[in-house]
Structures are given as structure tokens and as C-alpha cells.
């Protein structure tokens, strides 16, 4: 079945993994795993240069239909982040924003992160955030009910806390890709909060989609769950048919 992948990156990482980091690598993985769309942010933007990275990501998304763009925003550069959002969020290939607490060295509790989130909520209905504090995420979910928040890696080994967060807030979405394939977490989330707030994210091409697919398939998905988590939930968030 067709998959929509809500977690990917374009660009290099400082690790000795061959054949990664290019548009071609992403497209090859899309072909291999029947991925219809992949929403990606720029590794260059996360690691070094927000503006150059977003520009590179936009150029790739403009040229290759499967690629969709998260505009990377950085709480340390609020004005520039707003400018980046204003520049790209109106584009067809743009799906929302991406925040990374670790790479920006800014916890979700920081005032400047709250300021950035307010600016994001004014401009878009979707943000993906690399993990933060559950209390802050809950506050944002309540303060901005029209903003859908994808929680990347969904708290890793502390996934029950992420599931409780989703259970309490309908605009919280869980994305379980992780560098370790924790057993049982997908089934736990499905049983506790149902399939409607779980999206498929792979973290390609740092992580191969099959690594996360393995976690989903091992959960023994029903047809309804499979359709929801691999495609329909993401399609709804993206406004696709």
C-alpha cells in the first residue's frame, strides 16, 4: 500500500554510513517502499545554516513531487525564523514547520521556544518537534487547538507518556521512528489511543524505512489500522484526498 512518510531529512550527517544524504537517496527509498510523499527537513538547516538549508530543501521539493518540505525554524533566531516561514509556508510543497530542541540547544520550556511556537501557530496548522517536555507540549496543544503537533520519536523508551499525551490532546500525533526498534510500543499506542493519532515517520535516510516498518508490522496491524497509520492520518494532516 502507499505510504506517506512524515519524518525525513535531506542532507548529510556526521556518521560513517555510505550512500546517504542526497535527493537521489531519498527518492530511491521512496521507490523501494512505495512511499507516495515524504515530508522532510534539511539537515543543513538543523546542523548549521537555517536559511541555506531551507533553500536547499525547497529547491529539492520544488523539483521532485514526492518530496514535501518542513520549514526548519530555530528559536535562537526568531525574526529570521518568521521570515523563513513567510517565505516558504505558502508554497504547495510546504507542509508546516520543524523544530529541534537538541540542535537548537533550546528546551521546550524556554521562553523563546514559547515565542516561536506562537509565531508558528499564527502561520500554519502543522509542526513537528523533536522531543520536548510533555507539560510544554500539552500547554501548546491546549493553547493552539488548530495546530497539529507531531511528536518525533514519541519519547522513545518513555512511549507510554507520549501515548497519554495524545490521549488527552486530539491535536497531538505520534511518530515512532527511533534508532532502536523498541518492541511492543506501536501495539501499546494503538490499543491505548487508537490509530487516528499515529503517523508513519521513518527518519530516512539516516534510518531506513524498513526499520520502522518492522515495528509497525510486528504490531499485527488490522487493515483499518494499517490504512490509518501508513497513509490516511498523514493525508488528513496534509489536506490530501
Amino acid at each position, binding site marked *: 500500500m502507499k505510504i506517506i512518510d512524515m519524518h525525513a531529512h535531506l542532507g548529510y*550527517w556526521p*556518521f*560513517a*554510513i*555510505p*550512500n*546517504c544524504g542526497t535527493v537521489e537517496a531519498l527518492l530511491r527509498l521512496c521507490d*523501494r517502499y512505495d512511499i507516495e510523499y515524504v515530508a522532510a527537513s534539511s539537515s543543513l538547516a538543523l546542523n548549521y545554516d537555517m536559511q541555506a538549508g531551507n533553500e536547499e530543501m525547497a529547491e529539492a521539493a520544488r523539483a521532485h513531487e514526492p518530496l514535501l518540505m518542513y520549514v526548519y525554524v530555530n528559536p535562537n533566531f526568531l525574526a529570521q525564523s518568521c521570515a523563513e516561514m513567510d517565505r516558504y509556508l505558502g508554497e504547495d510543497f510546504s507542509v508546516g514547520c520543524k523544530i529541534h530542541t537538541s540542535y537548537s540547544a533550546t528546551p521546550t520550556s524556554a521562553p523563546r521556544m514559547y515565542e516561536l511556537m506562537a509565531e508558528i501557530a499564527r502561520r500554519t496548522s502543522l509542526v513537528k518537534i523533536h522531543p520536548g517536555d510533555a507539560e510544554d507540549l500539552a500547554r501548546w496543544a491546549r493553547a493552539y487547538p488548530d495546530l497539529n503537533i507531531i511528536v518525533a520519536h514519541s519519547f522513545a*523508551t518513555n512511549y507510554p507518556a507520549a501515548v497519554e499525551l495524545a490521549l488527552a490532546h486530539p491535536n497531538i500525533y505520534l511518530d515512532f521512528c527511533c*534508532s*532502536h*526498534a*523498541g*518492541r*511492543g510500543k506501536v501495539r501499546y499506542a494503538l490499543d491505548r489511543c487508537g490509530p487516528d493519532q499515529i503517523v508513519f515517520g521513518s527518519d530516512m*535516510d*539516516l*534510518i*531506513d524505512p*524498513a*526499520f520502522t*516498518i*518492522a*515495528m509497525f*508490522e*510486528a504490531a499485527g496491524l488490522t487493515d483499518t489500522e494499517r490504512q490509518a497509520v501508513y497513509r490516511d492520518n498523514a493525508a488528513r494532516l496534509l489536506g490530501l484526498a
Partner: protein
Amino acid sequence: MAGIIDMVTSFGIDRTREVDWGLETLLEILAGHDVERAYTCSLRAVHYAGPEGNDETLAACEEHEVLQPVAVLDPRRFFDQQDEARTRFEQGFRVFRFFPNLQGWPLEFLPFVRICETLAELGARVILPASGYGQATRAASVLGDLGLPVLLIGGSYGNIGELMAVLSAHDHFYCDAHMQDSPFALEGLMERGGEEQVLFGSNSPDREFLAPLLMARHAEITERQRQGYLRDNALRFLGEGA
């Protein structure tokens, strides 16, 4: 094709989470994946009492043919651990596993080195974690000259370059790949680390068995290399030839 040899499993209780890591759960996972042998240890030996846990491991392995025993040693206890190593070797344990990260001791810890010297004399094998930067390097520095076969587990994309360097410098060092989350990573490890030095460990039941298995299926390696990763390299590590 012969079945899989899984070098990294365990069973018992996780005191930090309400999850079922019991022996039956492990056996069910192994049965679902054509596993020929799984090397395992009781978590009781890790978190509570080594000898009691090792007894539990032995009992489980005697009852279930698919399981092979891995003894857990704790260098903090030092003297009796050398005796424990000898006793367990006489009982048929050939693989010994250490948990420095959980137990808080460094790899340069002299009691650990002395125990490993004993294990080398016995002709045993050792499993060590290598999940952080420098851990594989330190293991090679401390144990490299002993000739003791060492399996480094838990390395990820972060320290894959370090693993390649250590494996290529020491042909009696091996690594698993349950946290190498792309076929490219497995291909790279086999090409630059050593195609006979990368072997399968699932870390079941904590981790999803299917994830590293899919990486092996999708990797662009020869069938002989795939067979090596899933089975034959473990035999080499164990000294059984292949």
C-alpha cells in the same frame, strides 16, 4: 538455508517498566523467526545476583533446546567471579557477558581485566556493550592483546565508524547490528569492518526482532555474506568453524 543464530537475547523482569520480558515471550519470538540457536542470559544475574541468575539461565537452556547459556559476571565482586567463570565454563557456558554501563564500572577496571585473562585461558567468549563513543576503542585497547574473542553489541549509526576501525584492526573482535538501522550500515560494516566479523543479535525481547532481520534482507550483500551475518559468523565467533 539453516536457521538464524541470535547472539543477543535475555529474559526476566524489567524493574523500570511494565513489560513482559519473560522466558515464554522470548521463546515465542524465537519460534516465529526460524531461530536455530539463541544465546541468552537471565536478567536476574544482571540486576540482582549473578550466581542465582546464571543458575536460572542454565535451567532455561536445559529445558529449551533453542537456548544456549550466557553467563553474567560482575567484576565489582572480583575474586569469586573468577571462580564463577571457571564453574560456569565447566557447566558448559562458553559465552560470558558483562554490563559495565548498568553497573557503573569502566572497561579499564582491573578486576574486569583479570577476569578476562581467566576467560582467555579457558577459551571462552565475551560480550560487551559498545553503545557510546570510545567504548569499542577502550575494549580493544584493554583486551586486544589477550586473543579473547569479543562481541561488541549495541553500536549504532553514531559510532559505526569506530566499530569499523576496531574490527578491521582486530580480527577476533566482532559486532552485532541490531541498532544499525539501514541496510547501508550493515553493508558498510561488512565491507570496512570485516565480512566475517558482523553477526546477528536481536536484543529480544526488548527490541523488535524483525527490524535487524529486514536490514539483512534488504542489504545488497551476497547470499554467502547474508548467511554469514545470520549464522556462520556466530559459529566463527564461537570457535565452531563454518
